[in-house]
């Protein structure tokens, strides 16, 4: 079953075509990779899906309905979570507080949110750091915090934006290990190493212009 689909995404910044006619489909349960050189517009596609930028033209379908005009937070509530390539932790909060804040997406009481957050932290192996401030974590853990936080919103699709970029090989292995336990995710990576190892089910090579 196709859960997610983009049709002819186009984004112009002024006269510059950042994304020009990108279409792809993601099946339920599939790990889908999007690769391309620097500056080819991978992150921009994510920003379009999330409606950080309005689309110039094109269509984004999720569960059969168009989500292109929905607000970013509504899209998250529908079940599309994302991470940021340039990590955006809630810097002065602890790891637990970071994840709890995002767990409130699905639950209302603080007890349930913390329980869900702890499950996710445990799942992603951040337990030893849960009381640490996010700004004090090294980059590999901050990237993992991004994933943990995105997963705490209990998404149907997880958009991972360069979760392995700038990490040491050891950290990459750890990151992949935590990714592989997920059900359905769209990934974006310009490191070919991960795809050589057969991580993705499908890959869209995206040459840019």
């Amino acid at each position, binding site marked *: 079953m196709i859960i997610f689909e983009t049709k002819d995404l186009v984004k112009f910044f002024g006269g510059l075509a950042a994304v020009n006619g990108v279409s792809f489909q993601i099946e339920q349960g599939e790990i889908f990779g999007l690769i391309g050189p620097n500056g080819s517009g991978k992150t921009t596609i994510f920003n379009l899906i999330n409606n950080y930028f309005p689309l110039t033209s094109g269509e984004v379908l999720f569960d059969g309905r168009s989500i292109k005009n929905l607000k970013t*937070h509504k899209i998250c509530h529908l079940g599309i979570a*994302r991470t*940021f390539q340039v990590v*955006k932790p*809630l*810097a002065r909060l602890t790891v637990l507080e970071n994840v709890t804040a*995002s767990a*409130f997406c699905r639950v209302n009481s603080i007890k349930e949110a913390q329980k869900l957050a702890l499950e996710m932290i445990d799942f992603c192996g951040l337990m030893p750091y849960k009381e640490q401030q996010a700004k004090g974590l090294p980059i590999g853990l901050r990237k993992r915090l991004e994933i943990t936080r995105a997963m705490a919103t209990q998404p149907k699709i997880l958009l991972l934006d360069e979760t392995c970029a700038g990490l040491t090989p050891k950290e990459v292995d750890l990151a992949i290990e935590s990714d592989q336990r997920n059900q359905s995710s769209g990934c974006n990576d310009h490191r070919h190493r991960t795809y050589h190892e057969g991580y993705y089910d499908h890959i869209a090579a995206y040459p840019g212009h």
Partner: protein
Amino acid sequence: MKSSLGLLKALVVLMIAGILPLFIKQDYYIHLLILVLMWVIIGSCWNLISGYTGQVSFGQAAFFGVGAYTAGIMFTKLELSPWWGLVLGGWTAMVLALIIGYLCFRLRGPYFALATLAAGEILRLIANNWVDFTEGMVGILIMQTFSSKLPYYYMVLGLAACCLGVISLVMNSKLGYYFVSIREDQDAAESLGINTALYKNLSLLISSFFTGTAGAFYLNYMGFIDPSVVFSLHDISIQAILVGIIGGVATIWGPAIGALIMVGIQELFRTAIFGLAPKWVSQGHAMAFGILVVLTILFMSNGVVGDWSKIKRLFIRKSPEAAS
């Protein structure tokens, strides 16, 4: 565990505040305590929207003044008891908050700070010039209900307790997490499913409600308001910020401690250090605040409460091993 300890602390403070008038008989000191508690409310409200939610307000005077004038105008125009203002002042302040919030919170950047700054000044000018409605610069004079200060003291103590109680409840719930997330990173907050515009508005509504109620209380207590007092930029709006910064931004007890310090220093200077210093010293309170804020920002940027451990270390000298 942690929250029950906090509750205990709060109850102890409330009890001490409750029996304080048994030991302090002079009206003058009760008056100072009333002012302190009023500033606890205003400072805590500023702290909610600016300290926790990260939307810096330069115009708490707008909400304060609207609350005060609601009470005053109901008295002059409708001949209602000004005590009705205590019930309605918060709500009219919230209407103002809705307008400002609706216009500003869809935007990012300094627009909210500028709009609140402008709102306070605009309302002051309106109140000055719309003489038919607000009595203009003459101000509104009412008869105080009680000659003793004690009823006012307990009333404002109750208000302050309510205000702090609501804020700490809010901060320990989903709302609180959302407010702080918005302060830390709006993009991240949006991607986590937080409707940032909505939650910024909610924060401002709570903040304006208690500020407006404090304004209505001010009229009832002082018996007189005029535009330059209740819409004052430096005496209300800026002072609310100073109370927050000196006490400790984004801490529950920070504004309370800040209020104590500010009112203390203000009185110290106003009375020229109880008449011991030459008269010109009484002009210096604004400068003293300035110096205090500079020192606070330089040496303990989290305020007295936020950097309490630093202050303790300063006074209790331990051997380096024990300190670490």
